[in-house]
């Protein structure tokens, strides 16, 4: 599988660095408090925690949808709170995000949805076509290039969302419950995408409830409980991609 353009140059700074980060919505109590953590390039973590623990909230800080209420968050060595809006847009182009609710654009075909990050980044239409077609084939959506999200099944939508997240060969991948609603054969393939990018040097975080999934891969877990984060060792030591 050669789905991704290899990076010739490793990012200089750690993709994710949290220093005493706290976060809350509006005036409600803290959802996350005093998180300090550095995730280097080429790392792979699961993100676990009960429903409502704050997994999506933590990811929303990392994909720059929210800013920390306290503390400092640096992505690729840049303090996101201090970065200009255009700078943040540039950082976002190094991210690949699978949203828990997919966030596909209903008026665009599956192909155009996946192509969106490339087009926004100004990739040539020729390359867009090549990358997107290959990736959609890989996630098992051959023949559905022109289908709009409303005619896709739940699992098909999720695969489009995952393809969109990884199409730009991002250096930081944030996936919220990615293989939740697909059968195991496909879940395996989707995980392989992340693992492959991880091997190419990307920093990957996969939020999940699926204990089966967590136990299948030898990756450490970030566990959120009562607003604080702890790093737990991998549940399993079976090598991925077998």
């Amino acid at each position: 599988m050669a789905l991704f353009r290899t990076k010739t140059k490793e990012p200089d700074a750690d993709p994710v660095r949290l220093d005493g980060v706290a976060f809350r919505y509006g005036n409600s109590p803290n959802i996350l408090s005093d998180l300090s953590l550095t995730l280097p390039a080429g790392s792979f973590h699961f993100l676990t925690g009960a429903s409502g623990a704050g997994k999506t909230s933590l990811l929303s800080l990392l994909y720059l949808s929210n800013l920390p209420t306290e503390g400092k968050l640096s992505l690729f060595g840049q303090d996101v709170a201090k970065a200009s809006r255009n700078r943040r847009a540039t950082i976002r182009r190094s991210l690949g995000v699978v949203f828990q609710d997919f966030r596909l654009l209903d008026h665009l075909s599956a192909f155009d949805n996946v192509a969106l990050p490339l087009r926004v980044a100004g990739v040539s239409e020729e390359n867009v076509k090549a990358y997107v077609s290959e990736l959609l084939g890989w996630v098992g959506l051959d023949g559905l290039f022109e289908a709009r999200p409303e005619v896709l099944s739940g699992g098909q939508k999720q695969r489009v969302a995952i393809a969109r997240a990884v199409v730009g060969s991002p250096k930081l991948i944030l996936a919220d419950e990615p293989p939740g609603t697909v059968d195991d054969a496909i879940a395996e393939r989707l995980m392989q995408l992340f693992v492959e990018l991880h091997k190419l040097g990307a920093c990957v975080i996969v939020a999940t409830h699926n204990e089966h999934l967590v136990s299948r891969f030898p990756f450490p877990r970030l566990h959120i409980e009562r607003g604080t984060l702890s790093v737990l060792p991998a549940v399993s030591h079976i090598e991925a991609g077998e």
Partner: protein
Amino acid sequence: MRSDLPTPRQSTMGHFIAGIVAVLVFISGIAVSAAGSIGGLLDTWNASVTGTLTVQVPGEAKAADKLAESVRDALLKTEGVKRAGVVPRAQAQALLRPWLGDAKLIADLPLPALVDVELAAPSTLTLERVDAAVKAVAPAAIIDDHRVWLNRIAEFAQALGYIAFILIGLALAALTLTVVFATRASLTEYTQTIEVLHLVGARDGYIASQFSWRAVRQALWGGVIGLLAFAPTLLALSWFARRIDPGVLPPISLPLPYWGGLAALPVAAAVIAFVAARATVARALRAMV
């Protein structure tokens, strides 16, 4: 510019903004042409009422008739005079018949000679010129210029003009308000699209220009449709006006500058839509990190 947005065919609000602009341009067109026509109509009527005046040249019949001819010649050379003619004495006497009854008696009266004058463009200036020309030839002549009427109608037309102006202003204000309103409302449909574009790393300027050009296209399109609907309505109105009585109403028609103004309406709507769209998207984006 490549569009990552819904094509208008898929967008109810896209249709809607075009529709609203069409309706408002149509209304503005009606307002402008109503004002223009009423103004033009009053001008014409004004001219038909006051474009005539009578010069009385007093004196002994023969001498007065002679002098009247000189007055006529002088008037024909005066700027602003369309037609001038001596009223035959018999016709003038006929005018007096209801007053005096007795035909024989009238013939003996030392009636003044009359010159009937039609003005091309009745105005104070023209009246002054006529006055000067007449007085130069026949100082004793009396000019009956229906001035009261002239003043009254001129003032009325002017006042109506002011009001028409205000009405057009109001129609344009309504157009502006509605385009701003419709643009903002139409963009709420796109909040999710804006958010996703933002999240995949599009810059604010890129997102704003996508939406503002779309709004411009929709407003222009709506404006043109409004104008296209308006033109036949104007034709129908003018046909209707002609049917009533060709003498009473001159054909309802718009002076050229008005047409220019109407053609500017879609452009104005487009500009307003552009600014409103930019501002709305900018505000939506400011709410995102």
